[in-house]
């Protein structure tokens, strides 16, 4: 095995600035993150949450703007000796995570006030987690991947247990910590084995090294499998999904909403970076592994969701199933497949987050109200929210003309084109099952059981309404987002 001898060029100011430019969305957000910590220290406790939330929104918007600017006017390149990159793939996810962060902060402020959790740390943790996600999307080295993964996870472990006087929240945090640590260990072990086989941790160099290496090396295969298992944990795909329903149910809803979309998207970014970017020569191996995981996820997620009476658990299982659909695009690969993945993850943010956000509104001072019956009479309590919830559910179920349908259309087209027709047929049959439980959520929404009005704060209303609008608009006119997704998938081949 030949070890690549790294020749380090002299590192000057211009190079430093260029490198910083490549990761400027992350750098910007980190700056605001530090500022938020300081703000949280100096501001009186009654105002902390509000001020820190404002800082977070401004920081996220600023970072979002930076990412959009770089998308439009800058060329993406490697930075820090190929440890990270600012390519379109990274920027696409930066935009996704920043938008998600803004939506999360928007719905969580009134929730925190209602539940009497006035601490500003909540928003700081969300910011830290987003920084981790963005690092993950930009990572082109296994080391950076792991750095991002841990940053995002540790912040979320704490956030899941944020309701300190709620036992279930504590249980969720402990469970998430244990299982998450376990998954991280899997990923790390796999990385070590791949490093051993290729002699480098730089992902593009791994691909080069393995081009003429012995691919039958059992340790290398084991490394791929271990990483695959760890990744499957993180995207909450079956049979590695056991933690998902419990953690989703226990965590405060804004956290659940955030991680149901954010962690999943970040983990998919990681899978694409490492597998499609670093191990294209081992594609048959990880495709087989992921195909198995995808099939199991779709079956387990959809069947288990049927009997749930808690909305959070139902959406958790639905998320497991949705992870299965998205994996089809990853397995199909190529520009079409990955573009479909990016499109789906982006629109999944709106429909899934929106659904959770509506549930957030139901919460009372004593805790989250997430039983199906808690949605009762929503159309009388708050008609716009009932309409929006209907949009989110129909979109998750994949009814046209919502984004859910077009996302599936792109994923399935890529799947059939790549020869995975059996997987697509399974996905389609399982989608029929999914319609049953998504529609079941709508039954209490449109049944007159209660009528006391349900108030939503301005920022929550805006966040949910925006999610609803995008869930329809991006379906009726998917072209622009699809072009962006294709540009984002560009770094991974034709």
């Amino acid at each position, binding site marked *: 095995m030949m070890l690549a001898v790294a020749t380090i060029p002299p590192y000057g100011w211009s190079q430093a600035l260029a490198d910083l430019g490549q990761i400027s969305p992350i750098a910007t957000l980190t700056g605001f993150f530090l500022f938020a910590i300081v703000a949280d220290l100096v501001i009186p406790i009654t105002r902390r949450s509000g001020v820190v939330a404002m800082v977070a929104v401004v920081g996220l918007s600023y970072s979002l703007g930076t990412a959009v600017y770089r998308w439009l006017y800058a060329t993406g390149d490697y930075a820090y000796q190929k440890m990270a990159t600012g390519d379109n793939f990274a920027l696409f996810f930066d935009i996704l995570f920043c938008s998600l962060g803004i939506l999360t902060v928007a719905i969580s402020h009134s929730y925190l006030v209602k539940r009497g959790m006035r601490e500003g740390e909540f928003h700081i943790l969300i910011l830290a987690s987003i920084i981790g996600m963005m690092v993950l999307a930009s990572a082109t080295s296994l080391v950076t991947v792991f750095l991002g993964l841990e940053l995002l996870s540790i912040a979320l472990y704490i956030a899941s247990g944020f309701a300190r006087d709620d036992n279930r929240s504590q249980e969720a945090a402990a469970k998430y910590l244990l299982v998450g640590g376990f998954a991280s260990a899997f990923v790390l072990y796999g990385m070590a084995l791949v490093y051993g086989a290729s002699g480098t941790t730089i992902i593009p160099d791994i691909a080069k090294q393995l081009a003429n290496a012995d691919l039958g090396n059992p340790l290398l295969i084991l490394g791929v499998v271990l990483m695959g298992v760890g990744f499957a944990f993180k995207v909450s795909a079956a049979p590695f999904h056991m933690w998902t329903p419990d953690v989703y149910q226990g965590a405060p809803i804004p956290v659940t909403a955030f991680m149901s979309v954010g962690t999943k998207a970040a983990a998919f970014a990681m899978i694409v970076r490492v597998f499609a970017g670093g191990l294209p020569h081992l594609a048959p191996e990880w495709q087989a592994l992921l195909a198995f995981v995808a099939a199991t996820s779709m079956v387990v997620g959809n069947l288990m969701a049927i009997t749930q009476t808690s909305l959070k658990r139902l959406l958790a299982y639905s998320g497991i199933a949705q992870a299965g659909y998205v994996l089809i695009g990853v397995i199909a690969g190529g520009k079409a497949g990955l573009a479909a993945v990016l499109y789906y993850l982006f629109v999944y943010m709106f429909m899934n987050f929106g659904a959770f956000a509506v549930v957030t509104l139901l919460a009372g001072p004593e805790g989250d109200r997430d039983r199906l019956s808690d949605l009762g009479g929503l159309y009388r309590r708050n008609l716009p929210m009932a309409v929006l919830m209907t949009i989110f559910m129909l979109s998750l179920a994949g009814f046209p003309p919502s984004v859910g349908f077009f996302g599936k259309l792109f994923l*399935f087209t890529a799947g059939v084109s790549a020869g995975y027709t059996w997987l697509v047929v399974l996905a389609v049959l399982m989608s029929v099952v999914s319609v049953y439980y998504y529609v079941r959520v709508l039954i209490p929404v449109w049944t007159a059981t209660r009528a006391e009005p349900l108030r939503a704060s301005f920022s929550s209303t805006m966040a949910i309404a925006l999610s609803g609008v995008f869930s329809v608009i991006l379906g009726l006119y998917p072209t622009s987002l699809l072009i962006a997704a294709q540009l984002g998938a560009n770094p991974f081949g034709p």
Partner: protein
Amino acid sequence: MTLTSIWLLPLIGAVLIAFMPPRFAKWMGVLVALVTLGISGGVALAFAPNFHGYQFTEQVPWIPQLHIFYHLGVDGISVWLVVLNALLTVIAVLATPVEKPGSNRFIALLLAMSAGMAGVFLAVDLVLFYVFWEAMLIPTYFLLWLFGEGPSPGRAAIKFVLYTLAGSLLMLVGVIGEYVFTGQQTFDLAKLATIPPSATIQFGLFFVFALAFAIKTPLFPFHGWLPDAYMAAPTPMLVIFAGVMGKTGAYGMLRILVPLFPNPVDWWDWRWVIPVLAVAAIIWGALMAIAQRDMKLLVAYSSVSHMGFIVLGIFAYNVQGQQGAILQMVNHGIIIPALFLFVAWIADRTGTRDRSALAGIAPRMPVMAGVFTIVVLAALGLPGLNSFVGEFMTLLGAWERAPVLAAVGAIGLVLAPVYMLRMFQGAMHGEPVGQRPSGDIYAGQLALVTPLIILMFAIGLYPYALTQLMTSVAQTGLYR
């Protein structure tokens, strides 16, 4: 923009009407439906009979990455169904009682459903077709569930949706398969008909599409949703639900199954599967209709039987059969709403739909009985009324294809008078029982069915008015 307005106008109307006060909503709904009917009628009048291909086409790139177009057009197959849909929408909205709570939402959903079905008939792009096909389920589900009758409308609604989706989501695989396996990367229906994939691929795709359409039509043995859904559906909804929705399935067969999959595999000619099921549907539907005492259910099963004739005609693979099928789609769309309306009105006056509990209505409600006679006679295929021509043509086509199919199918013609006349005689004649019904049919109700009655005579006496527009299609070889 002409064709776009046919589906977009009702949809915009639906959104507006949902927020209007009920009384105002109804007249607004009628207005929207009438304007749509006017546009559709204008298209039919301006339709050029001897033109090859689609007319009034509108084509805009929609998702260029996947070569998906917003592509609308009408030809001899679809033009009459578009008009029928628009006409029945007017009648359905007019038949809606304003007194019930939420009638503005009811009318809005009716219009949305009608818009979806118009889109199905107008779409020339496979994905667009699919989008409308699925989208029309949403208002249908809410109509059945929120406004349904009977003990558990929610169950009937979800049963209908799951049945339909089981077929149509598999059809999504078929749609994608057409795109991938033809090797041309197009969803254009006209183009796809010229580039069929290999016979083995066709084998799979044919059944994927056939299942979706068979469930929607419905064909025996995929009709399990129909009795529940038709029983739960309120009558104004049934006017377009029974009148048009079933036709979308038959239309899909004619538009997609027949032209896109011409080559059966060597070892099995699967093109016989559907007509055999159609004959089974004719007989099964008729027998079930005979067994029913509830008149609404009886009419529902008669619909299964009649749809069998349509499908039989389509899969005769000849001009007579397919023209007869199109004609019969229109005929059935005229007769079934009238039957359901009358059943509902009888039930309204007498308090029951049980044909064995009714007797002697005719002397008490002479006008109702008179008009109902015409509808019943049309339904059982009396020469001179519209249904006769269509059924005759479908059977003629089937005879040319396979005499045995036509011979067995013709049993349905014998059974139709049995259940229709038994219902009619039982309810109308004999010694009057029970309370005196609260008056004869209203003038408004009579006016509601008048256009349908006129059409029954007009098409029965001069079917050429419709068939001449279909000849162009049958002869261009768009379908064989």
